[in-house]
Every structure is written in structure tokens, then in C-alpha cells.
């Protein structure tokens, strides 16, 4: 069962917040992981690993580079079954 986008955003924001210390309120759909949230590659890998577990999805390595914004990640995760 795919997850609704607003739920995915809420959980993903929590994961990102735990990893970075950034307030969940600032983790919005339009924010770029690298440019706006200052997340480096190791932190991104950590977020991906935690998101895979949280949402029980697979996010292939070659897909990660396409997830530029928080919204990209939310939409990708929400679309997985």
C-alpha cells in the first residue's frame, strides 16, 4: 500500500531532523537536500538507509541522485508499493 505524501513528508522530515538538527518545520517539499539543507553525501546515505527501513521501500543507488529536493524523495517513496 503506497503511503500518502503528507505522511511521508512528516516521517522523512523527522529522519532528516534527527540526522541534521534542522527543525522539521524547515524541511519542506521545495527544499534542496544539498543547497538548502546542507546535507553531505554521507548524511544523504544515512537518510536513505533510514527511510528505506521506515517506509519498507527500496531506494536504488542510481535513483538517489535524482532526489534533489525533499519533494522528489517524498514523491518517490509515496509511489512505491
Amino acid at each position: 500500500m503506497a503511503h500518502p505524501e503528507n505522511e511521508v513528508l512528516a516521517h522523512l522530515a523527522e529522519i532528516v531532523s534527527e540526522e541534521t538538527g534542522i527543525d522539521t518545520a524547515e524541511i519542506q517539499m521545495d527544499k534542496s537536500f544539498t543547497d538548502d539543507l546542507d546535507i553531505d553525501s554521507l548524511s544523504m546515505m544515512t537518510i536513505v538507509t533510514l527511510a528505506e527501513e521506515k517506509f519498507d521501500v527500496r531506494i536504488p543507488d542510481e535513483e538517489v541522485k535524482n532526489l534533489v529536493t525533499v519533494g522528489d524523495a517524498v514523491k518517490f517513496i509515496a509511489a512505491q508499493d
Partner: protein
Amino acid sequence: MNVVITGLGATTPLGGDVPSTWEAALAGKSGVRTLEYDWVEKYRVPITIAGQLVVRPDEVLTRPEMKRMDPMSQYAIVATREAWTDAGSPEVDPLRLGTVVSTGIGGVWTMLDAWDTVRDRGPERVLPLSVPMLMPNSATAYVELELGAKAGAHAVVSACASGAEALAVAYDMIQSGRADIVVAGGTEAAIHPLPISTFAAMKTLSKRLDDPERASRPYDVDRDGFVLGEGAAVMVLESEEHAVARGARIRARLLGTGRTADGYHIAAPEPTGDGQKRAMLAAVEQAGLTLADISHINAHATSTPVGDPIEARGIRDLLGGHTDDVLVSATKSMTGHLLGGAGALESVFTIKALEDRKAPPTINVDNPDPDLAINLVRNTPGALPASGDLAAINNSFGFGGHNVALVFGSA
């Protein structure tokens, strides 16, 4: 080039910083308590006491900081921040700033948690930061990042002598002109079922589980092994020239270092104490002093039946007629054995002893070993000479026959 100490920091079983740790030490308190973790019962851990931190890192670090560092690095960062602030948060060219923060075992918690993950949940669940967290250089690297140090970041490993050896390497870095300031020390976070079990399997840990505060008893006839401790101590070492130029408060001097090996056994010290004595002599010689100039020794003295007397005899052999004039303290009686952190914490105690002119007590010596014949400070602090420059030795000896002696002097 003279090497001075301008900042001290620590997080220990006696306190969350140097002042509280030292106050507790002078008062003869014990930091050893019964372990209250659920894993003690779950894994039937054979030894249920240890010297545990008074202030847990989650009380002072942010959650993101906690998550990206193994506990051994967390402790090192806490101690580093105190030391750096104590030194006046100096302005220094990053190319002239280095770090040497050692550990004996490394990121054992991260290593074992990651292994549990592989086994129980699969390799794809292992967190990407696991390697940077578990690698033994992690503590020195995180300190390097914290301070932006670029002269060099090192982590020397010599088991229970690691923390002292870190200070010796820092001394060399400054003496050789590689750096003006080096932040150095040691850390260990090994209160975990595996290290406890392996040390217990060597029959090297005290079994006085019903009386934790009295279990660590160096030089007492009823000592039956050491007590594990955790924590970190870090200090800011600086060239005297650099310290004076910036108007820094100099707390003490690192006058000389001695490092030798026993060439004898993978864990037991060489029985004649030759390697230990050579280290003490080398340090005193490098300091440009003689043994007659020494008024205090912080002994390694872990509370093992075999180890304590070897060191005591060695001290006696070296000091000869001067033995009664030298106050010896065995502070592991209060903190337990911080493994990679021990040499650094005990160097902090040595420096504080010089500053306050008080040698800390050795507690739990109800019946001193009759072979002792050194001037052991028991129960209450011992007074060091009230005036004049003082010099003291800190000994650290590690499994594998590593002997490190450091000579500190008054500011």
C-alpha cells in the same frame, strides 16, 4: 622548545569536568558503581561493576552529534571543548594546530551494533557512518574537525598506555616544530558486554561485585584485579613561546617523556620492571632533571595482584634513599581503569597535583601490601612542598609491554 599545558578537560567517573573530577578525587570519592544496564542480565555479564561517567554525553551534546559519533568520540569531544575553552579558545593558524587523541580499543559499540544489524536485519540496514564511527582514529579525527586542525591528526595505540603516549607524541610534534598547539589526550567507552567478558576471561577484573566502591584497591593485600572505567581527558599543549605571546595562562609544563617496551609478554609486565624503570629514567633525563627532583608519582597501579608490586619495586629501586620524599598516588582506586583514557586522565591529576600542591589519595588501602615500601598517599591528600618548582612523574603501562612515563613540572 618548551612544551606547556594551557587547557585541561575531562569527563570521568568522578565528574563531568576537571574541577568536579578533581574535587571528588581530593575527597577520596569512588566513581565505581553497579552496572544498571539491561544487557547485564540479558548476557549474564560476569562482572557487574565499573567506573561510569557522572555526566552522560546526551546531557551535553546535541542529538545529531550523538548520532554521528561512537561514545568514545563523544567523550573526547566533551573533554576537548572544556580544554579548549580553558585554554582561552586560542586563535591559531590551522596549519600550526594538531591533534593526538588516542583510544585503546576504538569504537567498539559502533562495531558491535553494526554487526548486530548485519546479523539481525541485514547488511542493507547498516548505517553509512559506521566506519567513520568505529575506526580507532575517529576520536582524533572528530577533534581535528571540531578545531579545524591541519598540522596533523594522530592516534597512537598502546592499550592502557595510549592516553599517556598521545601526550608524548604531542610533545614531539611541538618540539620538532610541526605545531604550535596540539590538543591531545585519550578516551575509552568500553563498558559493554564484550570487552567486559574478554577482560573477565583473562581473570584480570576484580570480582568484588557486592562492594563496588571498594573493589579497586591498588596496593592493598586483598586486591583481586582491576575495575573497568570509561571517560576521556584531553589537554591543550602549546609551545611556551606561543603561549606567552598570546598571554595564555600556563598551567604546567611537560618536561620529558620516556617510552620503552618490555619485549616479554602480550599482557603481563616483565617481572623485573626493567622496561618501566627505563621509561621513568628516560623521562626524567629528557626533562633535564634527576630523580631527586621528583616529589610525586601518579602510579599506573591498576589493582592487579601481579602488576602493582612490579611498579612499586621499580619506583623504590630508582628512588633509593629518596623514596620517602616522593608521594605516590594510585588514582585508579577512585576512577577505575579508563584503558585508553587512563594515561591522559592521570596526567590531568598529576598537573592538578602540581598546581594545588596536593597529591590525591589512594583509597581502599585497608591493609597495605607488606612488599610496598613506597610512600603511598592514603585516604586524604598528601601535601607537596609548599614552595619552589615541583616535578612529578605519571606512569602508564599497557598490555603488550608498552611503558610510558611523563614528567610534568610546575608552571
